[in-house]
């Protein structure tokens, strides 16, 4: 029972850190996915007097991903009943060219302004519509969401760090006496600390395994999927290879650092 208690305190601290890390990763992935969906939906519309070449625009502006011509036929079709063929022909000939510019990433408001003014400076471009008001609102919301997430993660990190420091003090108290007694009988430092390192490794493995099991169950149950689908994003909750490696690595490193610090700080007092 006592041994279980000793294990539980470090496992709980490590579990909290790993859980926070995974939740933060999910939030980061959600934001990235949302950014990607914003990027794919956002486009600028350019009105030009003559045809624009996609390759020349893309070579001039790195941020432009693709240039797609918008056909005016839909609008012209609607006018077919009200206008005769000659007038429609004249209209077709006098209409400017419309282009939809997709971008490499979701731009900052400053990037939108710079790109708009540079495009407007081109001779054949008459007008640029960047939907700046809508863009700014969404962008500010995204930044706010990111900021809140970071503050939340930072707060949890601080709390868990305090937990770890507290845990270190408990460990120091629990193991110092045994280490001192072993030193009295000539045990080398590695033998004296063997119990500590064994405990650290076992606890790290247990904590990381718990995270793996919990997130596997969450994925299997599928209860998070509808929430993400509702906001139109697809997120990998747990990447078995990458995330497991990260969790096992982090848990082992943290607990080994903890054990190592205790060994380094240990002062023989007899």
């Amino acid at each position, binding site marked *: 029972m*006592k041994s279980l208690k000793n294990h539980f305190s470090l496992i709980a601290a490590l579990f909290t850190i790993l859980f926070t890390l995974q939740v933060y990763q999910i939030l980061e992935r959600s934001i990235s996915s949302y950014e990607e969906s914003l990027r794919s939906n956002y486009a600028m519309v350019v009105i030009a007097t003559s045809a624009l070449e996609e390759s020349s625009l893309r070579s001039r502006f790195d941020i432009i991903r693709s240039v797609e011509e918008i056909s005016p036929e839909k609008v012209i079709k609607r006018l077919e009943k009200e206008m005769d063929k000659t007038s429609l022909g004249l209209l077709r000939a006098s209409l400017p060219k419309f282009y939809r510019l997709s971008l490499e990433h979701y731009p900052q408001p400053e990037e939108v302004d710079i790109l708009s003014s540079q495009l407007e400076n081109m001779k054949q471009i008459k007008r640029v519509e960047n939907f700046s008001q809508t863009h700014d609102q969404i962008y500010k919301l995204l930044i706010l969401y990111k900021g809140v997430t970071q503050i939340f993660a930072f707060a949890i990190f601080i709390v868990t760090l305090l937990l770890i420091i507290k845990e270190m003090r408990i460990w120091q108290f629990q193991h110092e006496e045994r280490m001192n*007694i072993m030193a*009295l009988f000539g045990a080398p430092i590695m033998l004296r600390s063997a119990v500590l390192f064994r405990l650290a490794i076992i606890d790290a493995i247990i904590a990381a395994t718990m995270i793996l099991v919990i997130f596997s169950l969450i994925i299997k149950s599928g209860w998070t999927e509808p929430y993400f689908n509702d906001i139109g994003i697809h997120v990998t909750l747990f990447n078995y290879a990458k995330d497991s490696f990260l969790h096992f690595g982090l848990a082992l490193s943290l607990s080994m650092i903890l054990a190592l610090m205790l060994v380094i700080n240990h002062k023989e007092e007899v």
Partner: protein
Amino acid sequence: MDKVISAQDLTLSYNNNETIINQSNFSINSGEFVFITGASGSGKSTLLKSLYGALEPKQGELIVGGVKMNNINNKKLNFLRRHIGIVFQDYKLIKEWTVEKNVMLPLIISGYAKDVSEVQVQKLLTHVKLNHQLGKYPLELSGGEQQRVAMARALAHNPIIILADEPTGNLDDYSAQVIWNLLEGACTQLKTTIVVVTHHIPETMKIDYKHLHIEYGSIYEVS
């Protein structure tokens, strides 16, 4: 007889520079039973600490078991301690280990095989009349029993010296006598050098012993 401990102009002090032992000389031969006495705060335990390397000599020379204690490195100190048995007034048993594992500690450290260690522990616990308690934890035993476990641990690896700091200080008369008998037995039968720090030399001692007394920082032999 071979000298197992020798001190030449030995000065001991703690970090505050207050001298506890001042330029003292003494020697202890192999197989001797030695009492170190003195008033409270005279430096008895400090002297014992210097014998197992917890306190380095400030000046002079101290040799224990052929190892010079001045500026001793960890490797040498661990080697020396593997040939010393130590008994304390507060037993210093590992609470979360069983009696058997506590007694086995010096054998684990010295790298004995498990089966050899188990036989040796069984023999020692029978010797201290605790062979029926080997699965128990220290806090489940009485003070006298805990000190017998500490004695068995001190004897486990056949040390050349046993250092004891007030080994009967916390015990009743009967338990104290058991400990004295065990220490006498180790000295006469195993030829182990015994150094005991105590306030009072027991009147029941059956063997010859050396008596070192500490007063005002000086160590002298009482004849």
